[in-house]
């Protein structure tokens, strides 16, 4: 028998050097993660610290006051954002979801490949360019900025994400479920809608929530579509205020009172986005749990 020596399996100088290198790089990666969390913490801290004091009922209900007068609120911007998001969903969801259904269930061959490709293209288009496009398409022909133009621009931002999410989730639905329904003599379209789409619904809802969260904070596509307004929405064919644009205007203004209101607006916006993200996670987690 060989002598019992624990050193036979102990780390030598070479291994110690390699372990040190491994630890060094692990630390470097951990530090990167810490670095990323610094701006996140700073942003959340500032938004809460500066914005919380301005939260009040009037902030959500009152119109902005003219320059020089203090007080007032962003009621019109909050309402305007809701209108714009509603319009974006109205225009964007049917197209987004059903195009996704087409890609997963109906389409084959070149057309489907081309559509998948263009959805990816659209996802990469800068949102300001979408604003320019909608301006040329809608604002020029209507001869005025309008809520409809803004909603359309936001819809174009939403569509590619919703389409690809829907497609991916429909593909996750087990094929035997579809076959079971078809085997019972259910027509194909009913199978798709009531079995496949319904099974994937929680996931699609997650995707929609994330898409809404994204467009809720979009400013660039609204600048020359929905424009802005100091008043309550007068109609869908008129310019309309929105939270992000109002924040932009107030944040870049020289008035301390407006800046304070902008912080409060930013707090609301971040809160909305955060809640939508958390809700999306909750829905995703619950549907995963249910599937298990």
């Amino acid at each position, binding site marked *: 028998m060989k002598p019992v020596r624990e050193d036979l399996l102990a780390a030598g100088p070479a291994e110690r050097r390699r372990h040190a290198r491994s630890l060094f790089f692990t630390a470097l990666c951990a530090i*990167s993660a810490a670095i990323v969390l610094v701006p996140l913490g700073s942003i959340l801290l500032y938004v809460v610290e500066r914005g919380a004091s301005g939260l009040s009922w009037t902030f959500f209900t009152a119109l902005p006051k003219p320059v020089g007068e203090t007080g007032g609120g962003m009621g019109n911007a909050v309402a305007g954002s809701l209108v714009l998001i509603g319009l974006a969903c109205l225009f964007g969801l049917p197209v987004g979801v059903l195009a996704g259904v087409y890609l997963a269930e109906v389409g084959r061959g070149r057309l489907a490949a081309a559509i998948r490709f263009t959805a990816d293209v659209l996802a*990469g288009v800068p949102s300001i360019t979408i604003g320019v496009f909608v301006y040329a398409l809608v604002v020029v022909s209507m001869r005025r900025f309008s809520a409809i133009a803004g909603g359309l621009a936001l819809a174009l931002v939403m569509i590619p994400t919703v389409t690809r999410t829907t497609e991916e989730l429909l593909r996750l639905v087990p094929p035997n479920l579809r076959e079971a329904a078809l085997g019972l003599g259910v027509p194909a379209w009913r199978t*798709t809608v009531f079995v496949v789409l319904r099974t994937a619904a929680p996931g699609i809802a997650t995707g929609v929530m994330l898409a809404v969260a994204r467009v809720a904070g979009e400013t660039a596509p609204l600048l020359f579509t929905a424009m802005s307004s100091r008043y309550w929405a007068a109609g869908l064919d008129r310019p309309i205020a929105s939270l992000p644009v109002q924040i932009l205007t107030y944040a870049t203004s020289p008035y301390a009172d407006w800046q304070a209101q902008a912080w409060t607006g930013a707090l609301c916006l971040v809160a909305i986005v955060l809640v939508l993200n958390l809700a999306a996670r909750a829905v995703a987690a619950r549907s995963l749990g249910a599937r298990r």
Partner: protein
Amino acid sequence: MSAAPAEALPHAAATTPSAPQRAPDRPRGRLGDRLFEGVTTALAIVVLLVPSAMLIELVGASRKAIGAFGASFLTSSTWDPVHGSFGALPFLWGTVVSSLLALALAVPVSIGVAIFLAELAPHRARGPLSFLVELLAAIPSVVYGFWGVFVLVPLLREHVEPWLAAHLGFLPLFQGPPLGFGMLAAGVVLAIMIVPTVSSIVREVLRAVPAAQREAAAGLGATPWDTIRFAVLPSARSGIVGAILLGLGRALGETMAVTMVIGNRPKVSVSLLDPATSMASVLANEFAEADSDLYLSALSEIALLLFGVALILNLLARWLVGATKGRVGSPA
């Protein structure tokens, strides 16, 4: 809704001449099915048409500027709306430099974060940590800009830029008065904004590397870092390049945050401390106020350029990421 008539007409289309050409695995012929397919196909074609329509609109809108300035639009740095003389060089310059600066700052950190989250962090910490990083992607651009104006710009002006000027001022990159607003601020804000994009794609690519490769390395006596270096990163390389290009695409098109901190001065300057501008910023600032056709057309051409560059970058990036995930993920 249309279910009743659909089932009342079973196999109505079975006699149409196109029926035999249909895919055999999908029973067709019911009106409901055809209607459903028609509607989904039509809406999918809407998606197909939007980017082409965008291209046509933008080309149409910029025709006047293209005709007036030709290629000099790209090389001239005169931007004079009053005299109707337009050159896009300062905007191209600002977009390119701020995006590259953002990449230089963000890429090492993003890859570090991705490796940490995919390979090294304790398993329990991975979920919450990646949620926090993804949250960074969810914060609206205008909030980044706002934070940039009130937190980042003062920080740069009072601490970072004086230090850079004092210690690295011999480089043309770091010359000039510390203003806060400028290329550096834009680069830093962009870097923060693209970290989640890049790191989440890199993480996906790393996770697509089969566990068998990690085990093979560990079984040969690799330390955790050896495993990453030899068994994971080489397979993920082109996917990582794709992630970087997607980050670049995002940085190029980013508007509000950049507009708020870059200083908006249409001049080409080498110094990162100087105020600059970008393609997206000039659109945000001037498009709604453009008062002549030529001015509007020049701005449209900038939008067209932005569209083209973003398009090419995104396609290249998606191809790289897709190819990596497909190749790495497929069984041996």
